[in-house]
């Protein structure tokens, strides 16, 4: 099935959604408007002629000077029908994309990684925290306007709760105990 065949199959299932066939050299690619993404994914998963039952990958690409700058890319596999499909959703700097975790639970961490790396917000995601970077990291490293080869200490430790004098006193006390024994 090429992109146009999938759009033809989808259009009656999701009325009013404007799909767009994307250029691709490997398998079908369609652009999905962000507001109809969840409906589209449910139709793709459940329609008997499609049955895309596995979401193998969610990622994004930052085409920086272009607007909208992000493309969120979903790779789907239909095991019963031996099909692959790539969905693309355009998202701007401030735009949000609905989460598809309710359709395929595997989207959970994959969307978290996209948020971590690109700063794209997934609406309705129950646990949108950093996944790979430290919790207190600033910025989203995979963005094209994020500097490379910077040195930045990771703030992942807690400050000591005792003072230096107390620490030394503890050591002295332990040493005294050892020698007394």
């Amino acid at each position, binding site marked *: 099935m090429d992109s146009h065949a999938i759009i033809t199959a989808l259009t009656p299932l999701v009325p009013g959604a404007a799909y767009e066939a994307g250029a691709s050299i490997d398998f079908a690619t369609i652009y999905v408007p962000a507001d109809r993404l969840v409906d589209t994914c449910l139709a793709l998963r459940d329609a008997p002629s499609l049955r895309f039952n596995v979401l193998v990958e969610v990622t994004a690409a930052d085409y920086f000077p272009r607007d909208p700058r992000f493309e969120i890319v979903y790779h789907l596999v239909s095991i019963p029908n031996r099909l692959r499909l790539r969905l693309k959703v355009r998202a701007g700097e401030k735009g949000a994309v609905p989460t598809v975790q309710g359709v395929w639970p595997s989207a959970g961490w994959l969307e978290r990684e996209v948020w971590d790396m690109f700063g794209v917000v997934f609406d309705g995601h129950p646990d949108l925290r950093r996944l790979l*970077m430290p919790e207190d990291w600033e910025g989203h490293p995979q963005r094209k306007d994020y500097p490379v080869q910077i040195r930045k200490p990771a703030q992942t430790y807690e400050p000591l709760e005792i003072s230096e004098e107390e620490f030394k006193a503890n050591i002295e006390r332990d040493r005294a105990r050892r020698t007394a024994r």
Partner: protein
Amino acid sequence: MGFGLWPQPEAYSRKPTGFIMAELRTETMTVNMGPQHPSTHGVLRLVLELDGEVVRSIRPTIGYLHTGIEKTAEQKKWQQVVPLVERMDYLGAQSNSLAYALSVEKLLGLEMPQRVKDIRVVIAELQRIASHLVWLGTHALEIGAVSLLFYAFRERELLMNINELIAGFRFFPSYIRIGGLREDLPRGFHEAVNAFLDRFPGKVDEFEGLLSRNDIFLRRTQGVGVIAADGALAWGLVGPIARACGVDYDVRRYFPYCGYETYNFEVPTEQEGDVYARYCVRIREMRESVKICRQAITRITPAGAWACDDPRVVPPPKDKVYTEMEALIQHFLIYSQGFTVPAGDAYVPVEGPRGEHGVYVVSDGTNRPWRIKMRAPSLLAIQALPTLVEGGLIADVVAVMGSTDVVMGDCDR
């Protein structure tokens, strides 16, 4: 979660007997496991909430091994990325570089000679065996069968020697390049591979003799960490984990690459979906890999084409560089400027040791990748870990985690 996949605590076959537990019920205990726990296969941190010995919840924390390989790759030329992607999933190094090379070749529109495809098949299958041997040794070690680690690593040593033979590098050979291979096969490659293939099935029998009917091993693995087929697919666990619950999805069979459709092999599946079923699937996969290697190695002539015939991508032979001006210019261009790749994106999946591998590459038409993204089977396996473990016993956590065969380098990238 509405999938109804794993046993509820009361249905669990080995729940603690109730007569003391009912009276002594206290608050739950939170235990930190990792990041330096040896059975976490790298640096994975698990925060377990325990009710006695029963795991009530498990929260994995990852990212300790994040090295920003994908960002680094955007600063490199296309061919310089090959060693980088090999370091992502460090146990399945050459299936990473195969996935990357196939994706970029798709963008370039290159078709490989048959001999290159066959050599890549041999290398990918040997890599699968090497990865499964590490998994088998460490998994058995964690469950208590310590000696198997040494037997498995002894066989893996032979595969490392083959890597050293073809590329001089044992762990990350970078032998698969965009446009073909680094160079032709060395003398003695066929002999080394054939010697390994003759020896190895007997060794798999030995491994199975130690484990497959071992009462302790069976009790530790059967009925533990069960996941059903629809659950495995919903969590994206395509690969050995899904095959252990009856899904016969294998990229080599469903979306063939490198001519896998011309090989005669089976896709091993089991029905139970527990730790033991995953063990059986991987053991049988090793036997199938031997079968594929035997077929491939007979097709490979000792000398012949080792790269495609495209002077944009493939450097000229060294003797021509020293004698011909055009070859010198071409050599210089490839190593100083690299080659450009037509704008577009591609994703060619391959069946790696841990499931579907693939590199999503985006090109903007220059000599550096705009974006590369490795599909990480380990990330999805760790994401599904709570589903596999919760409601089970704490002693089963390491058994289940070993059976998912996670590699943190793949997970964190």
